[in-house]
């Protein structure tokens, strides 16, 4: 089981901030493919991966990264701090 978190417009498009996901996905990209296939909201949020960033257990990562041992995955747009 993974905790999957969404922030900013990713959260708005999907319509929720957080959910638990039962998945056999081996990589972030596989998880994205699974989520995108759910419905139009997910498909819209993940339509352009280049516009997204991903963090695994609160560390920035990339879409090729394996999910083995990961407990928390977060998807969000490029950050705008400062």
């Amino acid at each position: 089981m993974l905790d999957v978190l969404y922030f900013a417009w990713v959260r708005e498009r999907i319509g929720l901030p957080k959910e638990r996901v039962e998945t056999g996905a081996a990589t972030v990209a596989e998880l994205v493919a699974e989520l995108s296939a759910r419905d139009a909201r997910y498909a819209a949020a993940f339509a352009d991966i280049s516009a997204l960033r991903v963090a695994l257990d609160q560390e920035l990562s990339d879409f090729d990264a394996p999910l083995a041992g990961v407990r928390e995955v977060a998807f969000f747009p490029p950050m705008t701090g400062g």
Partner: protein
Amino acid sequence: MRVVVQSEPFDLGALTAGFAAGRSDMGAVVSFTGIVRDTDGRLDRMEIEHYPGMTERAIATIAEEAQARWSLGDVLVIHRHGTLRPGELIMMVATCSPHRGDAFAAAEFLMDYLKSRAPFWKKELTADGAAWVAAKPEDEDALSRWTR
């Protein structure tokens, strides 16, 4: 090092005055303050979202990197989230060092990395509606000057 993520306003004067107080080995304090800017008079408010947990970790990592690169006596980072009006203070960084060069460089480094590596997202609300602030390519480019 002190990293604070909060929704409440902060007292810039008191924090700046208290930073490095009593450290007579520090010859230089540099501080930067970020303010909610209303470029064309249309901004009603800004809403800043963040990733609790990751935010504090990411900022601490950036501050540790600054301390490893430069001779710093201390680092302070305060960043707000939630609803902010034009003119309100969003964040501040302060650095102190025996000499000004390190304090200036470290403050700039912290700001460059906070912009695009700390998980905050800004949304601007105007009379026309709401829009997420997009990250600028320059913000990412700014990091390249620190890579070695």
